[in-house]
């Protein structure tokens, strides 16, 4: 098997992992060596699926002793298997990095022999890259659940980011679809990384991923899990990966297309948790456990709380601004700082990058409302917001939405 065939196999098996970001690290330039990192991250290309490519995302090997039902690489699948040597990975990484194809390496692996053995392979590869090739760019490595903590420690000093995948939000789901996995082993790693994190150890923090739509869990289950992970382990990101049907199994749902709209809603809600002062209970509950696919979670929340609106742009607080659909973090900050120097008008809002098409239903400027008062009802606003969003969705997403209309 030549290098190209290997690369195709081992990129193909790695592509389902959603994390790609290369941000959050400030690796200073070293006099010797190659590369640095860029705090806000850099996308080098965009794949045909529209996702950013910033890292050489590959598996060390796609051989695996586990048999997770949703995974292409599971033991019982009859597929071509390959394994990279550490030297091969270094060669590809360095050659790609010098030509500015990539920001760094994202190395994961199927489990060969046992977790410690696999972990050692990753460590060997990455220390070669750091110490022999003096590679100073971004490295994200997967920690193998169940590996000894001294190995987690070794790996942590070599990488910018580490992640261990939670995969499914509940133990019940895990038992059904990934019988060899144990969520305790994942959280053990997270705990260790959290306790030891420093400028030299996993400097850009840890992340994790959940697969969406392979098991029965509700959005409420998923968001509760995320919120819990953010709080307990100080994760930088939780990634959501819409389940793509690669295998057949009685325990897997029969779907043809991945639930992309749902995935999108989860990302939106995740932002609300992290940056917009929302709590899970604000947006979902056991009575209302799943997202409205037609409308984004923030607008959905606003429509259920119409009595709190409209907000006056020149008088309400920063927190209140953040809750207005169509106003983002930057927009809210700009409004607050501008207000000190002049009275903000609708025209100014447009200049500040606020999406008036969405915000106009929920705000007043100096007491003035852009709509007529008799249109102030949830039905009318919902219809318009849905229409607005439809204009911006792609055809596959439209098909999925159509199912719910």
């Amino acid at each position, binding site marked *: 098997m030549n*290098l*190209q065939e290997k*690369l*195709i196999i081992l*990129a*193909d098996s*790695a*592509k*389902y992992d959603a994390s790609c970001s290369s941000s959050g690290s400030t690796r200073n*330039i070293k*006099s*010797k*060596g*190659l*590369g*640095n990192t*860029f705090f806000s991250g*850099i*996308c*080098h*290309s*965009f*794949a*045909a*699926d*529209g*996702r*950013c*490519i*910033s890292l*050489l*995302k590959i598996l060390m090997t796609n051989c695996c002793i586990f048999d997770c039902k949703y995974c292409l690489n599971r033991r019982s699948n009859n597929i071509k298997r390959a394994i990279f040597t550490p030297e091969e990975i270094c060669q*590809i990484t360095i*050659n*790609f990095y*010098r*030509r*500015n*194809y990539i*920001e760094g390496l994202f190395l994961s692996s199927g489990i060969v022999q046992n977790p410690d053995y696999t972990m050692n392979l990753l460590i060997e590869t990455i220390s070669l890259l750091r110490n022999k090739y003096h590679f100073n760019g971004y490295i994200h490595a997967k920690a193998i659940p169940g590996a000894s903590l001294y190995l987690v420690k070794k790996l942590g000093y070599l990488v910018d980011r580490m992640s261990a995948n939670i995969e499914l939000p509940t133990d019940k789901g895990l038992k059904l679809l990934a019988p060899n996995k144990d969520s305790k082993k994942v959280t053990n790693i997270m705990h260790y990384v959290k306790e030891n994190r420093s400028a030299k150890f996993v400097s850009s923090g840890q992340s994790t991923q959940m697969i969406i739509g392979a098991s029965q869990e509700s959005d409420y289950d998923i968001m509760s899990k995320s919120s819990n992970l953010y709080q307990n382990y100080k994760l930088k990101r939780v990634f959501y990966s*819409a389940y*793509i049907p690669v295998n057949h199994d009685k325990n897997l749902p029969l779907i043809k*297309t*991945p639930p*992309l709209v749902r995935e999108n809603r989860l990302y939106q809600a995740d932002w609300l948790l992290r940056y917009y002062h929302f709590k899970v209970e604000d947006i979902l509950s056991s009575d209302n456990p799943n997202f409205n696919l037609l409308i984004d979670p923030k607008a959905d929340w606003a429509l259920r709380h119409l009595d709190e609106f409209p907000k006056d742009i020149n008088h309400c607080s920063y927190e209140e601004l953040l809750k207005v659909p169509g106003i983002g973090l930057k927009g809210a900050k*700009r409004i607050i*700082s*501008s207000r*000190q*120097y*002049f009275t*903000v*008008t609708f025209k*100014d809002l447009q*200049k*500040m990058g606020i999406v008036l098409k969405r915000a106009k239903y929920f705000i007043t400027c100096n007491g003035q409302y852009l709509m007529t008062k008799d249109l102030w009802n949830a039905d009318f606003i919902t219809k318009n917001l849905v229409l607005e969003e439809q204009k911006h969705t*792609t055809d*596959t997403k439209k098909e999925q939405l159509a199912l719910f209309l």
Partner: protein
Amino acid sequence: MKKSNYIYIYPNDFTSLITLLGELAKSKILPLNIQDKNYIPGLFDKVIELDLSPLNTPAIISHIDKNILNTLFYLYLSNHEYKELIMYYFFLYSLKFKDKVFFHRDINIVDKALKIVKYVQNENHKLKGFTRFKELKRHILYAEITCENNIIFLLSNHFKKRLKNEFWIIKDVKRNILSIYDKKDFYLVDANNCNLKEIILSEEEQEIEDLWKSFYKTIGIKERQNDRCRLNFMPKKYWKYILEVSDEI
């Protein structure tokens, strides 16, 4: 302030332009336009070039707040037809509002200026990712880029850190400028004055490019295909020099 019917001409460099702006502000002149030396005057244009040599450029520049000077520099790099005039008005407002000028989105020209700056910064950021080097004989890295704004200086600053221990050359194809880095610093030169005809690729270049193209094709998930999204993030105008998509054009 008095309106002038003259178009003011400046030598083609940033510091002279700033000196001129300072001088115009001091004499309270609102010029019809400000243009660099390559400007070809129309039949009825009245042009004037001030002698800036007796003025103390470093003193003028040191009086300008760092953020404002930076903003002026980004404006200077932009491809906007009236960038000099926009710079001048932004400069005038910065004299009035000091560093608070950045909050004054209610003033159209300030808003315009800040949007242009954002556009230049965005393009620079995009090119940090989209630039593709090829390896030539003797391990020299060579990249051709195309960009709306004149960002080669900014981009070179980035690669000076990232590819510190490499020899590299970046060519802005549209402006015909080369940035040449010798492991210490980079130099911007007119490509006409350089003999770069002999671009011979290193032996392994083809193999590496093929590896990258296979990786690119593989990593996209076909069940998630989304051309609109891809085009949004990676506009076609850059594709010619992005190896992995150049043959899709």
